Each structure stands twice: as C-alpha cells, then as structure tokens.
C-alpha cells in the first residue's frame, strides 16, 4: 500500500527531487552560470507542479474538440457564452413560432451544420413537434435544436458539447409540451432550461459531451511563470557577462577575493 501511495504520486516526487536539486545547485556552486542553471531547475519543478495540479485523470489537453474547436476560447468563456446562446435561442424560438412551423428555409440552412455535430442525438429525440409537422421538418431535427445549433457557432460556443446538452434539455421541454400549438412556448421553455443548463457551467456541458478536459488555468498561469523565468534567466546571464567583463571571472570565491584585495589592499586570510 505504501509503495502504491508513493508510486501513484510520482509526479510530485519528480517535483520535489527537481526542486531540491535546483536549490542545492544554487547554494553549493560558486559559478554564476551554474547558479542560474540551478535557478532554472528550481523554477522548472514549479512548472511541473502547476501542470500536475491541472491534470485530471483521463482528461485530454484543454484544446476544444470538434469542427470549430480552433476558433473558441477557454472553458470559462464557453460557460459564459452558453448563457448568451440560451438568450439567442429565445429570440430564435420566438421568430420560428411566429412562422408557425413553416420555417423550412432556416431549418434547412441550419441542418448542414447540425448534422456534422450532433446527428446521433437527433435520432433519439422523438418528440411530438416533429410528428405534427412531417412535411416541413421531415428531413430536419427539432426546430429548437436547429436554432440552437445555428446560434451556437456564431456565438463562439463549442457546438458539439453545448448543442448536445441543449438537445437533452429541448427534448424534455418538448415532452412537457406535446401540443403543436404551444410549440413556440415549448421553445421558450427549452430556452430557459438551456440557460439553466448553461448556468451549471462547465460540468453540465462536459458531462453531456463525455469529454473531460484538464484544467487549463494552471497551464495559463505557468505560461506566465515561464515567461518570467526566461526573463530572470536572461537578466541573470546578462549580469554574469558584465561580471566577467568587470572581474575577468565568474567564480564566486575569486570574486570575493578580488573585492577583498580592492578594499583592503591585501589578500584575505588563508589565501595565497
């Protein structure tokens, strides 16, 4: 058990070993460049520590998966955007209900995007709204879902995930309102529920999509820390260069001896 406990946390051991190695080099080496190297090791251990914090077992890299993944922001943005998408859907639903089921054009337009993204789920949604309007919507999934999927990419929400959860919500909503006349109201309900689901944030979205991302925030933080580390290294090495120019050496004991001679005119005790 104890061995398992230790082995399971191997990345923390790496962090600790690197950290101690780095600090030891900083304290024990007299060469200024080696000190900078030690500092670098020390900082690298912290980078690994932060990445360990962000790691979720079974999670993928925090890069959004799906056709539009490349244009989207981080998950926080996704959660915020989802609320906006809910609101957007509300208006879309209102428009569609005004047209009372004869909204073939927008539905077909949106269909192309949708079939890429969440086609599998649509089959599961057998709701009365479709059955009431077979002629118009026979080739298309539910209106609410369409509008949502259409709205989602334009609002920079990860479409695969968001629309999936929206589908579930929409399905419930339609089941609650089987009457064709209240299809518009059903959309509004769906919209409000979508907003709720979005309010639950990343968790609800991720569950629906069954994609687990590692936490991106530590990665962002450590990118900043890496930049700081690079700057520190640069300044440290630049100082080492200047020390070399001024003293002709970068060994700490020789620097101290030179300073001692400069100050007192004689070598320090115990030195030749």
């Amino acid at each position: 058990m104890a061995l398992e406990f230790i082995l399971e946390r191997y990345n923390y051991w790496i962090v600790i070993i690197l950290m101690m190695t780095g600090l030891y080099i900083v304290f024990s080496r007299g060469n200024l460049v080696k000190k900078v190297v030690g500092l670098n090791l020390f900082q690298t251990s912290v980078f690994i520590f932060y990445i360990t914090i962000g790691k979720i077992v079974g999670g993928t890299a925090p890069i959004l998966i799906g056709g539009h993944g490349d244009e989207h922001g981080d998950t926080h943005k996704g959660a915020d955007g989802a609320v906006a998408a809910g609101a957007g859907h509300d208006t879309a639903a209102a428009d569609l209900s005004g047209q009372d089921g004869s909204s073939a054009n927008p539905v077909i337009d949106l269909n192309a995007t949708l079939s890429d993204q969440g086609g599998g789920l649509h089959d599961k949604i057998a709701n009365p709204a479709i059955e009431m309007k077979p002629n118009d919507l026979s080739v298309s999934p539910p209106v609410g879902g369409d509008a949502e999927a259409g709205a989602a990419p334009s609002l920079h929400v990860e479409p695969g995930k968001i629309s999936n959860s929206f589908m579930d919500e929409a399905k419930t909503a339609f089941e609650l309102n089987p009457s064709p006349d209240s299809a518009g109201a059903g959309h509004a309900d769906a919209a409000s529920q979508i907003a709720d689901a979005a309010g639950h944030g990343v968790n609800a979205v991720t569950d629906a999509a069954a994609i687990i991302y590692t936490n991106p925030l530590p990665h962002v933080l450590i990118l900043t820390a890496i930049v700081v580390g690079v700057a520190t290294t640069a300044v440290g090495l630049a100082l080492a260069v200047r020390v070399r120019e001024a003293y002709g050496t970068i060994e700490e004991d020789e620097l101290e001896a030179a300073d001692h001679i400069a100050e007192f005119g004689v070598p320090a005790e115990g030195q030749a």
Partner: protein
Amino acid sequence: MSGLISQLPVLPVITPLIAAPLTLLLPKGRVPWAWATIVSWLTFAASAALLHNVATNGVVSYHLGDWAPPLGIEYRIDLANALVLFLVSGIAAIVFPFAYESVRSETDNRQSSLFYGAMQICLAGMLGVTITGDAFNVFVFLEISSLSTYALVAMGARRDRRALTAAFNYLVMGTIGATFFVIGIGLLYQATGTLNMADLHLRLAGQDNRVIEAGFAFIVVGIGLKAAMFPMHLWLPNAYTYAPSVVTAFIAATATKVAVYVLVRFFYSIFSPDFAFMQATFAYVLLPLGVIGMFVASLVAVFQADVKRMLAYSSVAQIGYMLLGVSLGTKAGLAAALVHVFNHALIKGALFMSVACVVLRLGSHANEAFQGLGRRMPVTTGAFILSGLSLVGAPATVGFISKWYLLKATFEVGHWGVSFLIVASSLISLIYIGRIIEMMVLREPPESGPLSAPIKEAPMSMLIPMWVLVAANVYFGLQTDLTGGIASAAADALMTVGGAR
C-alpha cells in the same frame, strides 16, 4: 472625462507601464528624465484621486477587461492599498524629479533612457502588486518590479563594480523568494480552485489542512525574502550600498514596504487570524524574528564604516518594527504597522536622498565623507539631521508617531517586555545616527586626501525634492489625521474583511 474617472483604478498602473517603453524612444539626456517626472506626477495624481475616492465612497472594485471576478482579474482598492499606492507613487513623484543630476553623475549617460524606463517599470510593478485583488497577479507584478530593480542595482557598476555581484545575489534570492511565493499560490489554488483574493478568503474559511498550511508557509517565506525579513535580509545591504543613490532612495522607500503590505494582505484578506497556524506564526515566528531583527540589524548598523550600508541595516531593523506590529494580531498593532510602513518610507527616502547629495559632490558615501559636512553642505546636513532624528523617533516627526502607535499597541496587549525592547532598540538607532550627526556637525572637514577638495552645496533640483520629503516628515509628524486615521480605518477594514463581502 467621466470615462476617465470610471477607469481611474487602472490608471496608476497603466500610466507608467505604457510610458516606460516609450521612454526608450526618447533621445538621450534630459528628455527621458523630464518624461519620467511627468509620468510620476500623473501617476501620483491618479493615486491621490483614488485614495480620495476610496476614503469617501468605500471599496472600489475594477474588473480588468470587464471579466467578472472570480474568473477575471479584479483590482480591488480599499483603504489599506490606497494608502500604499499613495505612498509609492508619492515617493516616485519626489524621487524622479530629484534624480537628474545624481543619475547623470553616477550612471552612463548613454543609458539614461534605459534607466528611466526601468524606473517606471519598477514603479508600475510595485503599484500593480499593491492594487491587484488577484493572488497570481501579485506574483507577476512582483517580478516586473523585481526584474527592473535587478537591472537598476547593476547600473551602479559604473561607480563600483561590486554592484554587479550585489545585483546577481539579489536576483538569485529574489527569484527563490518569488518562486516560493508561486508554489504557495499553487497550493492554495489546489485547495480552493480560485485565485481571486476575496474568493480565496471565502473558500479557505473553515478549511484547516496540510495543503493550506504548506501554502501559507511558502508564501510567508517567499514574501519574507522580498521584504528582507530578518534572517532573509542578506541581499539587502549590498544591493542598497552599491546601487545608484537614486535607486537606493527609491527602492528603500518602496520595495520592502510593498512586500510588507503583501504580507499583511495575505494574513488578513486571504487567510484570517482565526486559523490556528496564523496565531502560532505570529507568536513564534514573526514576533521573535521582528524583535531579533530590530536588535541585531541595529547593532550591526552601529559598526558600519559606510553611511549607505549603515542605513541599509537600519532598514532591516525597521522591517522588524513593522513585522512586530503585524504579529501582535490586534487592530492597533496592524494600524501601527501600516503607519510605520508609510512613515519609514518618508524617513528612509529623505535619508538616502541626502546621501545622494553627498555622493554627487564628494563621490563617496563612506563615513569620512560626512566629516565636517555641516560647514560644507549645510542644507543637506540639515535634511539629514532632521530625517535622522525622525528615524530615532524624536517628537514632532513621523518616527515619533510610528513608535507611539507601536508602543500603544504593545501596551494594549500587555507585552511590557516588547515595549521595553522597542524603546531600547530606538536608543541603538540614536547611537548610529548620532555618530554620523556628530561627525557632520562637530568635526572638522578632512584636510588632505580626495575628500578635502572644496565643494558646493547640492543643486536646487535635488535640494527642493529632498526638503519636500523632509517637510513631509515633520508635517505628518504633527498632522496624524491622514496616516493615523486612514491606517486605523484600513486596519479596521482588514480585520473585518470576512464580513465585508
């Protein structure tokens, strides 16, 4: 105009941060200095307006890029950091105009735009540390100010090459401190999942486990290194001694104070004194280290043969007073610490500025240079004596107010022994300051050697800012409404921060 007012909280940071790279485009010579001076005044105006705003309207919260906290970065300004902002930008607004002659004589003139650029970045970093309400943001700004400080210290190499090794050691220790701080932040993030200070406070409440204790320890050690807390002060004497005089005056008055502020902010706004380990830290770490620091550093200062180095050790001792105030864990103690942060900045700023005047005329800050200075540079001597007395704690100066608040705070908790030690260590400071004053006033100027050449008084461009700061020493010693009143209110707000949000 109203748009500018709503953006007021970000102005103190953004003004020097944008102005600094522009400085590099300016021609060498006087122009970068003038530009930096104007920027520092604008920054000071923004900070003063912000302090006024916070004092009348209460806490200001500014969301950077309109991202709502806790996800976005929040600038959260209450009385405590408004006071430190006012202090740091105020010192900058006095030191920057003072700088021209001194910098021209001590650093390479071709680097003047680089020098003033680095000064502004340093200012922006310290203001950022003070103003932000995001724990990781503190680290970023801390490193922005530290990195430019390393470069500034190294610029003293033209006069003394030991500035290079001093800067290198400062870099090594400062980086270790900053990295410890990041580890602490990482542990807190692991325990809570947030970086916003107010949010951290809410989520930490009631938690008590090893992760938080370890995070706390890393943060205290990391910031302690930056603040030159007693056993971790080894970088400070050399860095202060060999840096260009203006840089010393600026960072001695601001950098360690900002670090002490960060410590206070973490103690009260993120952790709270309810934590058992906080009480232990106060009683067994900060209090003893503060007292030992006060004595050891003061005693070391007595035996220095160099005024700048003596004042540097004195700074370490003064940090001890501040930590002592914080470690009492009472409102009065915290208020005393904040008052001393403010007052000590005024004292050390003025003292190092008078040393800068001496260095300009005599090219040395060894004790011998101060012999008989009363006859050769009477105005500078007057400034040194007044601010020196303020350091000791003579009545009608800010030093007296600091000691008074601190003594009152120790009486309140019944630490009679500690009160005695405060008075005793003040007497040591009387010895080392008195020694220099005796040299300046009573001794004859050296009759031979390089220091005996006839000299003039320092130029007006240096005397006026220096005396402004000396006058502030006396003014705030008589008018305690601003410092004492705001510090007490700030301490009040910090102690009750749990209910504030």
